[in-house]
């Protein structure tokens, strides 16, 4: 995949999050501060606009770091900081114009490390890390078993969805939900849910490669 494919990924992520904004916001209203879906949809939509203004020869690194910077500025809140950090770290890891599965795997690992550096969450804390960490592990496992980029991305998307669902029985240890203690149990984490959508978008745009 190349810079144009990465732009297509952000565009697809913006579509999926916009389509599901109401559900994400309702999930957030249950255990967070109730603005996740619409905030993230707005941030991603602005990122798409900014990416459309990039020169045609922009590098993969420029695409993702630009998208990350836009999310930080325009999404606001914890999700803007965390997704912005994830995309910027992923972008910085991409030092070539043509991204194969090995490069994309490295970028996803960097995104996870960035999120964890910033948010200090571990797996099991009921956050986006529960979706993203499983996605990264599944991507690497699929690649080691011989999957191509599209196959590894599909495995990552499926694992992210499983990771999001796995947050339902968890008790939150980060964010506003952590103040609820046992009352946070039984709710899907909105950040894990949006992470699953963003990984689904990645699988969608790489699907054509085969």
């Amino acid at each position, binding site marked *: 995949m190349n810079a144009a494919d990465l732009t297509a990924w952000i565009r697809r992520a913006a579509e999926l999050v916009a389509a599901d904004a109401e559900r994400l916001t309702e999930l957030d209203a249950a255990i967070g501060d109730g603005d996740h879906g619409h905030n993230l949809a707005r941030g991603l939509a602005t990122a798409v606009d900014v990416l459309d203004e990039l020169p045609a020869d922009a590098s993969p690194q420029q695409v993702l770091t630009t998208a990350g910077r836009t999310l930080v*500025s325009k999404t606001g809140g914890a999700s*803007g*900081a965390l997704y912005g950090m994830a995309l910027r770290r992923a972008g910085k890891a991409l030092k070539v114009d043509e991204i194969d599965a090995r490069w994309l795997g490295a970028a996803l690992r960097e995104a996870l490390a960035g999120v964890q550096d910033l948010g200090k969450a571990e797996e099991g804390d009921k956050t986006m890390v529960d979706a993203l960490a499983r996605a990264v592990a599944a991507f690497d496992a699929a690649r080691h078993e011989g999957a191509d980029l599209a196959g590894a991305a599909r495995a990552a998307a499926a694992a992210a969805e499983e990771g999001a669902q796995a947050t339902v029985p968890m008790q939150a240890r980060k964010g506003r939900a952590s103040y609820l203690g046992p009352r946070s149990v039984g709710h899907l984490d909105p950040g894990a849910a949006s992470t699953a959508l963003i990984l689904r978008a990645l699988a969608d745009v790489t699907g054509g490669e085969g």
Partner: protein
Amino acid sequence: MGKVGLVVVSHSRRLAEGVAELAREIGMHRVRVQAAGGDVDGGLGTSFDLVDSAVRTVDDGAGVVLLADIGSAVLISRLFVEEADTTAVLADAPLVEGAVAAASMAAAGADLDAVVAAAQSAYEVRKS
């Protein structure tokens, strides 16, 4: 060398401004304190861009200490510190008590490390 500047990062514009007002007073108006409260539209929330402009306002070369309330205020402050090309430190401190302690120390002409340490020592003051 100038004095260390302070930035108060809160979800509420009025809370940030109130803490900044208190810190300026405690700092005998010898310390630059800037509020970065709410989102860019003035609603509840946080804004990386507001933090960025607040730091520029108070930075005169001696460094800037960020004091944050909760959640995303902490995250965007951490992110700012990582990205900043200026010397900024997020104090691991309670917002009001940390800002007051930092302002006192900064007004005395202390360096960045001492101001951060003063803010962080605010956790040790018990209330009961």
